[in-house]
C-alpha cells in the first residue's frame, strides 16, 4: 500500500473512532447545529413543495372541492346548532362539578401539528412534524391522535420535530390493560411482509388471563406519557418462561397519519 493511502486510511479510522465515541449529548448538539444550519433550506424547500402540492390539488380537485364546500356548509349549520346545545351542557356540567367539588382527571393542552415527512430514515419508524421549540414542545413529549397514542418526540429543531412512532422498538411506553391489574411495557415489533404493524406488550405476569379484544392504555408510569391514552387492543397472548407477552393491534393507523397532537411537558 502506498504511504499516502495508508496515512489516509489511518486518518479515516481516527475520524470514525472519534465519531463512534461521541456521547449521546454530543450527538444531540451536533444534530442541533446541523439542523440549525440546514433549516433555511428545509423551510424554503418545504414552502415550494407545499405551494406545488396546493396548486396541483387546486387544479385537479376544484369541482370536487366545490361539492365538498356545499356539504361542509350544511354540516357547519348543523354543528352550530349542536354547539349551542353543547355550550349549555358544558355550563351545566361546570356548575354541577363545582357543586360536587369534582376534580377533572385529564386536562391536556394539545398542540396540533401536520406530518410533513414520513419515514425520514431507512430503518427507524419516524415521521417529521411542522412544530418545534417555537411551539413550546420538547423531547420525549407524547404525540397522539383522536384514535390513540402515536409516539414520542425524538429530535427537536426550531420549527420542526421528529417523532419516533410506537411501532419502532426504540419507543416504549408503560401500559395497563382494561379490566385487569396487569401492567407491561409496550414496544414496536418488526412489521411482517404485507401485514399491519403490531405492538408487543411484554413483562406481563406469567399466569396472566388477558383475552383477545381487551383494550390497552398508557398507565402514566415514568411521568412522560399521561395515563389512560388508548394504545390498542389485544390480539393474542403467549406465555413465556418468566413473563407473558401479548400481541397488540395499534389503535392508530400509522399509514394514514396526517394531523397529530403533541402533549407538551407542562401538562
Amino acid at each position, binding site marked *: 500500500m502506498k504511504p499516502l493511502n495508508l496515512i*489516509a486510511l489511518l486518518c*479515516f479510522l481516527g*475520524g470514525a473512532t472519534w465519531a463512534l465515541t461521541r456521547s449521546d449529548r454530543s*450527538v444531540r448538539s451536533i*444534530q442541533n447545529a446541523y439542523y440549525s444550519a440546514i433549516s433555511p433550506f428545509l423551510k424554503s424547500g418545504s414552502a415550494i413543495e407545499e405551494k406545488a402540492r396546493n396548486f396541483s390539488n387546486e387544479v385537479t380537485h376544484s369541482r370536487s372541492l366545490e361539492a365538498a364546500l356545499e356539504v361542509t356548509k350544511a354540516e357547519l349549520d348543523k354543528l352550530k346548532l349542536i354547539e349551542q346545545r353543547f355550550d349549555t351542557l358544558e355550563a351545566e356540567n361546570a356548575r354541577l362539578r363545582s357543586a360536587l367539588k369534582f376534580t377533572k382527571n385529564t386536562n391536556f393542552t394539545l398542540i396540533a401539528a401536520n406530518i410533513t415527512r414520513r419515514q425520514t*430514515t431507512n430503518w427507524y419508524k419516524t415521521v417529521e412534524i411542522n412544530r418545534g421549540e417555537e411551539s413550546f414542545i420538547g423531547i420525549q413529549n407524547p404525540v397522539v391522535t383522536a384514535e390513540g397514542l402515536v409516539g414520542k418526540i425524538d429530535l427537536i429543531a426550531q420549527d420542526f420535530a421528529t417523532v419516533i412512532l410506537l411501532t419502532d422498538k426504540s419507543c416504549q411506553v408503560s401500559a395497563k390493560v382494561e379490566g385487569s391489574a396487569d401492567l407491561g411495557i409496550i414496544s414496536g415489533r*418488526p412489521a411482517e411482509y404485507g401485514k399491519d404493524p403490531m405492538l408487543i406488550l411484554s413483562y406481563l405476569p406469567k399466569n396472566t388471563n388477558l383475552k383477545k379484544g381487551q383494550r390497552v392504555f398508557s398507565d402514566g408510569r*415514568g411521568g412522560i406519557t399521561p395515563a389512560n391514552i388508548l394504545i390498542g387492543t389485544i390480539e393474542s397472548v403467549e406465555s413465556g418462561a418468566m413473563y407473558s407477552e401479548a400481541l397488540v393491534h395499534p389503535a392508530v393507523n400509522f399509514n394514514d397519519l396526517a394531523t397529530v397532537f403533541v402533549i407538551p411537558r407542562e401538562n
Partner: protein
Amino acid sequence: MLRYSITLFCLILLTVILQQFVPAFIALYNARVFLLLAVFLCIAVTVPLPVMFLYALICGFLWDTQCAISTSNLDASVYVDSIQNIRFGSSILLFGLAGALMNGFQPIFRQGKWYLSALLTGISTFLYCLAEYSLLDFLRGSFTINRGVMLQISYTSLFSLLVAPLVFALLFFIARISHYQIVVTQKRSFRRFT
C-alpha cells in the same frame, strides 16, 4: 484536481439537502432513492483513495447526523432493557467500505466502462443497506430478514442503479469544466476523432 474535489464537496452538501426532500415510497416497501449514497459511490470511483476516504468520512458523518435517534436519558422505569440502535459513526465505516469496493474497480471505470460502475453502484447500495439493516437487527436481538425488507433493499438498490448514469454524466461534466481527467480513454477517443 483541487477544483474538482472542491466542486464534489459542494455537490455532496447539495445532495445532503436534496436527500431531505426525497420521500420514501410507502407503496414500494418504504424504498427510497438513497441519493447521498448513490452520489458518494459514483464519486468514489472517480477520485484517488485518500480523497474517497475523506468523502466517506463526510458523507457517513452527515448521514448519521440526519438519522441518529436517542438511546440514553430514557426513563429507567419504562425502559427495562437498554435499547440498542446503530451507533453514531457506524455509517462512516459502512460508507468507507462501500467506497473502497467502488474504488477498487476504478481501473475498469478509467477505461470508459462507466456502465459497469453504475451496475456496481446498485450492488454496493444493496450491500450497504443489507449491512445496515443486519447490524440494527442484530443489535436489537433478532435476525428477521423477511421478504418486505429484502424488497425494500432491492428497490432502493434499483433506484441507485437508475440514478447512477445521471450522476456519472454530472461528474463527467464537472471533470470537464475542472480540467480533471477521470477517464483515460477520453483523450484517446478524442484524438481518434480529430
